[in-house]
């Protein structure tokens, strides 16, 4: 372990044992600080809970500390540091399985992503333990708007905001000691590249203009720069209004993303790959789908220029030749240097590999290094954190092929921690290009975010963040809540309304409100999905069978109403005339409704529930990867009965491919199922047109639901 930097030491001192929200600049590597902090609590006399979501950051941290991550079953008995997901913590707290009163403190990673269940966990902790510390950290300042930071601070019940931007004086002085020698290589774009870039920008601004025209008042903040930023930034901007956008707008957004990808790959790859990327956009299928930018003159010139560029004399990316020059220069020395080339994407690494080794036919995709004279040259995609990579290769020369703020920061930090040897960093960037612009925008965005946060901190008076944690009581009785429901906001709100929330694995329904009343909660998208898949039909059947008063609770928001699957819902009401529907415009309204429904009725009976439900079933989603579980459950031959067997015995898709039909029959339970799974895995599949011709789908009087009232 290398020595701690000054700012890291101070950060640690600031954080130990106090309530705080820490927001640091990306790339400053607060992970190391967190590790030191948690290491101090690795003692059975302490119990520190780390609330995580199984993120990569958390896995690394848990691994470094030698404790199981939150994806594994945890035990609070032994003390020390325990990683736990918010959902498990909430359920354990409600069942009195975790000694919250004697917990030393709670650490919250990724504070920018605090959701309902995290908030619930923290509130339960605060109610039962007024003294333990709550420490939340984040390295994504741009995710905190003024409103958001206050919300997060209310959630964690503290007003101590710690800000550590790159321009913090301690950070500046710590990183200015030994700095890497930076060589900026401003490569100029070729004429055709510049023209293509202009055309792409023009098309992008068309998309943005159209978007704003179609959605007056909704997307006023949107501009080309925003559209160029990372897709995630754009998505965050759009999320609040996403459901209000029509199909045309959504297509425009998809097109803007496509154009953005093209702009990036223009800077990264050669003419041939760029042309290959354009190919799918020229198809009639895409033309039909796209929002109309293909009809603009700029689109035509884009295609013509790209084609011309890839004509007789193939144009290679100017960056490539610059890179080759640098390598030539550096490898001239007799010393045995190690050179590390970092590119954002694995694909670029492979392209560079082929170009630099002049080995077009190279099929070994895993080869990531080659020898040049006495030098070893490594090609790696940019990862975060960079430190293990740097420590493993210990290169003296680093070439940043793509401009990336976080990578630059990490190199600075790495150099400050390891003053010897001094690194030489080549920074290859297209001068005056979108690439350079994006880099500067990212820097500015972070700086702006921090400045806003600093102002927010100054305006944050003492005691402004309310520390009202509410009381825990069962004034309004008990509601049994299915453990899977703790992802939603409703259990938290019920608890706030002084209802005792009893987590239980429910086979039928999501909430048992009274002895006879069972509620299945659905958001509009859930409603659409479960009506289509037949799940709601099954759930309604089960509720009707087990409870006198089955209720479907539909949570809808504003413009959701145009998406409601009315016809299917009506069919459901015809089939289940006893099923009541509660329409709720918000989780708050739902909570109020449920509390109201309890009045004057018998409490839900645990015995009755226990007769048809069972406590503590290990759930599929706790043991299996979510994506693959869903994936496998869709495969032919797999159904709800044999899913667990296929998943646990199968291991992974790769392993499934190696199994023969007999083995798969063993997994699925029947020979027929095994056979159909086997052929689905290996046989080429195509839509059976003949079958659909012989048996045309019966669709009498098919009518589209009126989407909007004119």
């Amino acid at each position: 372990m290398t020595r701690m930097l000054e700012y890291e030491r101070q950060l640690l001192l600031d954080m130990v044992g106090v309530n705080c929200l820490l927001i640091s600049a990306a790339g400053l590597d607060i992970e190391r600080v967190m590790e030191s902090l948690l290491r101090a609590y690795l003692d059975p006399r302490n119990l520190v809970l780390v609330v995580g979501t199984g993120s990569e950051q958390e896995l690394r941290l848990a691994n470094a500390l030698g404790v199981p991550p939150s994806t594994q079953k945890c035990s609070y008995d032994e003390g020390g540091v325990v990683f736990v997901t918010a959902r498990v913590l909430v359920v354990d707290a409600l069942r009195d399985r975790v000694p919250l009163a004697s917990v030393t403190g709670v650490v919250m990673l990724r504070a920018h992503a605090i959701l309902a269940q995290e908030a619930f966990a923290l509130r339960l902790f605060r109610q039962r333990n007024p003294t333990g510390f709550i420490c939340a950290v984040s390295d994504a300042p741009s995710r905190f708007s003024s409103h958001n930071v206050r919300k997060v601070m209310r959630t964690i019940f503290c007003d101590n905001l710690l800000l550590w931007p790159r321009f913090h004086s301690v950070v500046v002085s710590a990183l200015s000691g030994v700095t890497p020698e930076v060589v900026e290589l401003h490569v100029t774009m070729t004429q055709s590249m510049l023209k293509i870039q202009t055309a792409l920008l023009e098309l992008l601004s068309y998309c943005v203009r159209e978007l704003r025209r179609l959605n007056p008042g909704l997307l006023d903040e949107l501009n080309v720069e925003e559209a160029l930023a990372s897709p995630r930034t754009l998505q965050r901007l759009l999320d609040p209004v996403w459901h209000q956008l029509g199909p045309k707008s959504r297509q425009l957004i998809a097109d803007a993303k496509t154009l953005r990808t093209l702009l990036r790959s223009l800077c990264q790859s050669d003419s041939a790959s760029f042309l290959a990327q354009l190919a799918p956009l020229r198809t009639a299928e895409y033309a039909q789908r796209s929002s109309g930018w293909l009809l603009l003159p700029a689109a035509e010139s884009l295609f013509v220029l790209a084609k011309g560029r890839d004509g007789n004399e193939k144009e290679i990316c100017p960056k490539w030749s610059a890179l080759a020059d640098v390598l030539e220069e550096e490898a001239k020395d007799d010393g045995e240097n190690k050179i590390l080339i970092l590119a954002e994407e694995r694909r670029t690494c492979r392209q560079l590999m082929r170009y630099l080794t002049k080995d077009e036919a190279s099929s070994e995709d895993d080869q990531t290094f080659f020898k040049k004279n006495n030098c070893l040259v490594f090609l790696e995609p940019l990862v975060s954190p960079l430190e293990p990579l740097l420590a493993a290769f210990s290169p003296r020369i680093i070439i940043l092929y793509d401009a990336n703020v976080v990578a630059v920061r990490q190199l600075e930090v790495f150099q400050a921690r390891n003053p010897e040897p001094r690194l030489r960093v080549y920074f290859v960037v297209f001068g005056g290009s979108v690439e350079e612009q994006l880099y500067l925008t990212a820097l500015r965005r972070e700086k702006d975010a921090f400045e806003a946060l600093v102002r927010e901190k100054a305006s944050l008076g003492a005691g402004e963040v309310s520390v009202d944690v509410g009381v825990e009581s069962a004034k309004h009785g008990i509601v049994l809540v299915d453990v899977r429901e703790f992802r939603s906001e409703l259990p938290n709100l019920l608890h706030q309304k002084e209802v005792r929330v009893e987590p239980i694995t429910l086979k039928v329904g999501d909430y048992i409100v009274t002895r006879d009343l069972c509620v299945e909660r659905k958001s509009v998208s859930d409603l659409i999905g479960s009506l289509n898949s037949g799940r709601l039909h099954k759930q309604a059947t089960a509720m009707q069978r087990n409870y006198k008063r089955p209720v479907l609770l539909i949570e809808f928001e504003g413009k959701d109403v145009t998406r409601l699957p009315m016809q299917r819902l009506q069919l459901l009401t015809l089939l289940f005339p006893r099923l009541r529907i509660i329409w709720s415009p918000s989780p708050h309204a739902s909570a109020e409704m449920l509390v109201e429904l309890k009045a004057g009725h018998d409490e839900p009976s645990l015995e009755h529930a226990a007769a048809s439900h069972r406590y503590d079933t290990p759930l599929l989603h706790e043991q299996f990867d979510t994506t693959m579980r869903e994936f496998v459950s869709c495969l032919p031959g797999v159904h709800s009965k044999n899913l667990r067997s296929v998943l646990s015995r199968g291991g992974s898709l790769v392993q499934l491919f190696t199994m023969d039909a007999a083995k798969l029959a063993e997994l699925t339970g029947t020979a027929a199922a095994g056979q159909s799974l086997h052929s689905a895995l290996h046989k080429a599949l195509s839509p059976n047109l003949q079958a659909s011709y012989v048996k045309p789908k019966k669709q009498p009087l098919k009518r589209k639901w009126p989407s909007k009232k004119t």
Partner: protein
Amino acid sequence: MKIFPFHATGGAGFVSAVERPCVLNYLKSSSIGVQDKSDSMDGASSSGGGQLRDVLPNLSKSKFYDQAKQLPPGDPASASTSKSSGPVNYSALLVNPKQKGNPLLKHITSVAWQFEEGIAADYQPTRTAGILFLSMQYHNLNPEYLHERIKGISNMYDLRVLLVQVDFANSEPLLRTLNRICLLAQMTLVLAWSAEQAGKIVETYKMYENKPPDMIMERNADEPYFQMVKALCCVPSVNRADAVTLLSVFGSLEKIAKAPLEKLELCPGFGPAKAERLWRALRKPFLRLGVTQEDALKAAEEEEGDDEEEDLNDYDG
């Protein structure tokens, strides 16, 4: 904001004079002012009704309107039976004449409908299903109307639908009351946000009279191709079009899963991020980190004989 003439201007008077004298009684006892209002509006609404009859002269049931008006206030049930003397065409959607002038009728275009005096509900798509229509705006002014109507249809149908048109700005408190009323009165609440939508809802109830439940039931015997498309769509950010592309480019799942990242990236519609996500997802072990095969299988044994329906909608993170 549009208010239905038969509701907003003369609704209460109209309703009470024809069939529901108890509403009138209630209004009399509760507030003179309201009664006066309803009396004065009665005339307005009758004339409105007259205009409608001129427009639709063929409606055989319209003559009962005046008869009904002369009936002594009393037992509404006997009044309604006495009216259903004519042949009732139960294959058509039956509409209570009280709904004359409701703009939603304009939007019932795909099924035959006729006015029928004898029905208790506002709309009767089948013998066992009755729909009451309520404008939220109207309910806000006349909350008692709904109670009387509900009394009138209790025990009359298996499925009692309260179709509420949300045409009131501050709908939340009203919605809450209506939710509660429907639970107490054992009615199914259905919301519409426009007259058009309301009309389509009424129409659909008629059209779905004998509809088998297939549309909302699980389909197991899908073609393997479509099942595979569905499976690929489970990977975040892969949509239907992507799944179709993958299957047409690579053929089989095995080839997709074993394709190098670079090949995936070249598929139309795939950027590096999406390609990598798919590539990673297909290589992930099924079991989460730290869960052993034994643990998972032990849980499987416990689950035996248990047809637990796993909620597939729980997304992580």
